[in-house]
């Protein structure tokens, strides 16, 4: 279980996150939705250690991970698939994937092969590209590579920052189906940040709505899906 308690963060002198409370339970996909600039990406970056929180704590299965630098957080079981995929463009697909388990590679080298097989089973499309450079893949393939790379470290929770960005609807559906696989078959918790609210509501168990650095609303998928304010703000559904 991931427990976020009273989390605040600033970039420079500007306070971006204001006392966020959030929880992800085992076996859950939690989606965070909100407009541009709501602080969704900052939240994920703070959870993963790229930004230091100014206040509050983050606990992953009762271990405090807030305040650790990013390269240590991933070893504790939290993996972030960053916005814009960020694959290593001049490294091969196989090298990209293997680097995903850098945090425990030197301790558990024997896991490299089974983990690689696990990811390739999930994304069979990457198989034929193993020795091609990551930068030459299509957008959808790069997203799959980025998610696969994030799973290589055997995380307890995986954070995805707008995986649907710039992808064709068919590929978005494929990636969303993969999230269900990650949740059900691998038993990994998921936080999904999306602007594509419809897609997010499709797969999420629970949803948090963020606005200007605060959580303004939370509830199950159905509750949020029926909320007229959310629907009109993010899906353009007119109020009756």
């Amino acid at each position, binding site marked *: 279980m991931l427990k976020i308690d009273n989390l605040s963060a600033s970039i420079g002198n500007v306070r971006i996150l204001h006392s966020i409370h959030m929880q992800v339970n085992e076996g859950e996909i939690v989606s965070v939705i909100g407009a541009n600039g709501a602080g969704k990406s900052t939240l994920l970056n703070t959870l*993963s250690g*790229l930004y230091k929180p100014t206040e509050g704590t983050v606990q992953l299965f009762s271990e405090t991970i807030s305040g650790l*630098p*990013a*390269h*240590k957080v*991933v*070893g504790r079981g939290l*993996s*972030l698939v*960053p916005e*814009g995929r*960020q*694959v*290593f*463009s*001049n*490294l091969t697909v196989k*090298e990209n994937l*293997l*680097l*995903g388990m*850098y*945090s*425990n*590679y030197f301790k558990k080298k024997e896991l490299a092969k089974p983990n690689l097989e696990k990811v390739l089973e999930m994304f069979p499309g990457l198989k034929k590209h193993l020795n091609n450079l990551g*930068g*030459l893949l299509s*957008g959808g393939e*790069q997203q799959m590579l980025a998610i696969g*790379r994030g799973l290589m*470290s055997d995380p307890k929770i995986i954070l995805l920052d707008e995986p649907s960005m*710039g992808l064709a609807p068919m590929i978005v559906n494929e990636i969303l189906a993969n999230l269900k696989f990650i949740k059900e078959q691998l038993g990994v918790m998921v936080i999904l940040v999306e602007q594509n609210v419809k897609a997010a509501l499709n797969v999420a168990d629970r949803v948090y709505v963020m606005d200007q650095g605060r959580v303004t609303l939370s509830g199950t998928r159905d509750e949020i899906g029926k909320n007229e304010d959310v629907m009109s703000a993010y899906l353009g559904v007119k109020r009756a």
Partner: protein
Amino acid sequence: MDFAQVVQYLISGLTVGSIYALLAIGFVTIYNTTGILNFAQGEFAMIGAMSCISFIGWGFPMYAAIPSAILVTSFVGLFLERTLIKRARRSTPVHMVVITIGLSILLKGIGMIIWGTYPKSLSPIIHAAPIEIFGAVMTSQSLFIFIVLIMLLILLYLFFDKTYLGSALRASETNPRAANLMGINTQSMSALSFSLAAALGAISGIIIAPMTDATYEMGLMIGLKGFVAMVIGGMNNISGAVMGGLLLGVLEAFSNGFLSSTYSDAISFSVLLLVLFLRPMGLFGKTSGARV
């Protein structure tokens, strides 16, 4: 001008060029992993050469003195990165250039205090009869330098392209933020690249010392030549740096031969200016682009 003479210039050019190439590889290694132009790279050559001479003075045999000197120099590189460079990581590139120039002056000063101002000589590393190629003479020292360069290139290729740590280094070079998210401590990678570059600098100092003698101020000029080679080669690839180094060496040898050795430095730096004006990405560099 006869053919033998041209071959002779070519051999001496490639010899000097190999040394520039080694320094340029050091520049590229640091630049790629940290984005820093390390103008103290030439000083690593000075420390390598001088400490090797000291080790021999203390009675070390050559085969022990060389690795010891390389080790000492790479520790100096590691120490500088951990104590000074690390603290300045958030500085702008221009500040970083000034910092490394300062570092180079500091190291030169320390070198002067430790080793004095008189040139010191290192006896040739191997003794063998010169070889004749197309009427030109290749000394065993030149041959040795080529072999060292080729071996180092193979080792570096294997390290960067075939080892896990090498791929981690390349990853922190292309995308430090993402590398961080994988659990790669990019600061350790920076330390690793400084030690590696220092070791490469030391090797170039040790192999050039028997030909030119070593002084506390030898670092400046060969460091700058290494930098020129790196820029000609395109800043961020090792093979380009090697080509740049060899090209610069050959150019210098021919201008020494046909014009005068007085102009050789001026010619090197004119080439630098020409490359910067006409092909700022370097002769062997690619303009970078990314799929978004």
